């Protein structure tokens, strides 16, 4: 009820494919049982790195703005965009700074390293412990449902089109069994030639 990470609701999921990654989230923002908005995106991109933030909405906004600032400073210092692996460590250390008064979020990161072309996904707990994964990462109020869906639908080395279908079906079916998630969804498919599809469902 007063658990900060489930006041607003919302979910996100990332998957690894063959030379591609996918990341998706729902669009609901609510206040306990009352649905307030169906346009609250939980995925943010900093160059070619994508960050999904499920959890307390105020912290989702605050963190997305913190990472916008930090990645811009990084870009100016390094004269290049941040890579997914480095960004994951940035997320981790930023969250751990607030070890004893944490942001109530479950972040996930997806992207393709522009130097090595290696796809990368990972997730975190609310204080920044990194969970590297070769297959999929789930987060949010429908994480149980997403685990069930991903564990049964996912297979390795999917092509972008098939990965899109898999992640979409996983997210849609999972959020349909969670009252706090849903109300629309966004799916991003990221390939190395930086082609990215953005698809909305309603």
């Amino acid at each position, binding site marked *: 009820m007063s658990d900060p990470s489930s006041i*607003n609701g919302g979910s996100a999921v990332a998957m690894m494919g063959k030379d591609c990654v996918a990341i998706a989230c729902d669009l609901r923002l609510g*206040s306990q049982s*009352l649905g*307030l908005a169906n346009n*609250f995106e939980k995925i943010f991109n900093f160059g070619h790195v994508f960050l999904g933030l499920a959890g*307390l*909405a*105020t912290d989702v*906004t*605050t963190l997305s703005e913190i990472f916008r600032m930090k990645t811009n400073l990084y870009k100016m210092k390094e004269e290049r965009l941040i890579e997914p692996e480095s960004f994951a460590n940035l997320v981790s250390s930023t969250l751990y700074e607030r070890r004893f008064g944490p942001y109530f979020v479950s972040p996930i990161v997806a992207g393709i390293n522009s130097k090595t072309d290696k796809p990368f996904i990972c997730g975190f707990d609310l204080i920044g412990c990194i969970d590297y994964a070769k297959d999929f990462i789930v987060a949010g109020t429908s994480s149980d449902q997403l685990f069930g869906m991903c564990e049964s639908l996912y297979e390795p080395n999917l092509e972008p089109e098939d990965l899109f279908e898999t992640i979409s079906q996983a997210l849609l079916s999972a959020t349909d069994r969670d009252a706090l998630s849903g109300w629309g969804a966004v799916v991003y498919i990221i390939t190395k030639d930086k082609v990215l599809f953005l698809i909305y469902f309603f």
Partner: protein
Amino acid sequence: MDIVLGIKVQDSVIVATSKAATRGISILKDTDDKTRALNEHNLMAFTGEAGDTVQFAEYIQANIQLYGMRENFDLPPKAVNHFVRNQLASSIRSRKPYQVNVILAGYDEAKEEPSLSWIDYLGTKVDIPYAAHGYAGFYTFSLLDRHYRSDMSVDEGLKILKLCSEELNKRMPIDFKGLRVKIVDKSGIREIDVGL
């Protein structure tokens, strides 16, 4: 039990707030104004903990006006919204957070478009076509879902507001002494009497 409503129409925003000022079992006033004009084109409506609300609203008002004087440039709605969100988001992690929920109605003169932002005491901000704080949403969102169009005129918007007002008067357990209605558009902020 305070009512704070906002409806964004074609080129303006309608804001309605209840006129009752309640403390415990008494209605202290039936002409309360739960809004503050932040600048020419930005209006903030608020509800929450007694004491915190006006204190916070006037603090924001002062700072937005100070900015306008210093820079000789009024902050546009998007900047105002983010400033207010930031104040509340910092406040929630302080020793004594402001318990204030706000709705920000604005008109962006450069973009020539209205803006409506819903922000709660946690710093949760969403830009939505119609917004309400507290119990009012439970009674009015269904009506707004059914009748709202983004290309409505002010008069059409006021028609829906009337439906909302009737529903609130019918279902709310205590008399909220009617609604004070304000419009924010390109010519600024004005109060109108629509007999609600």
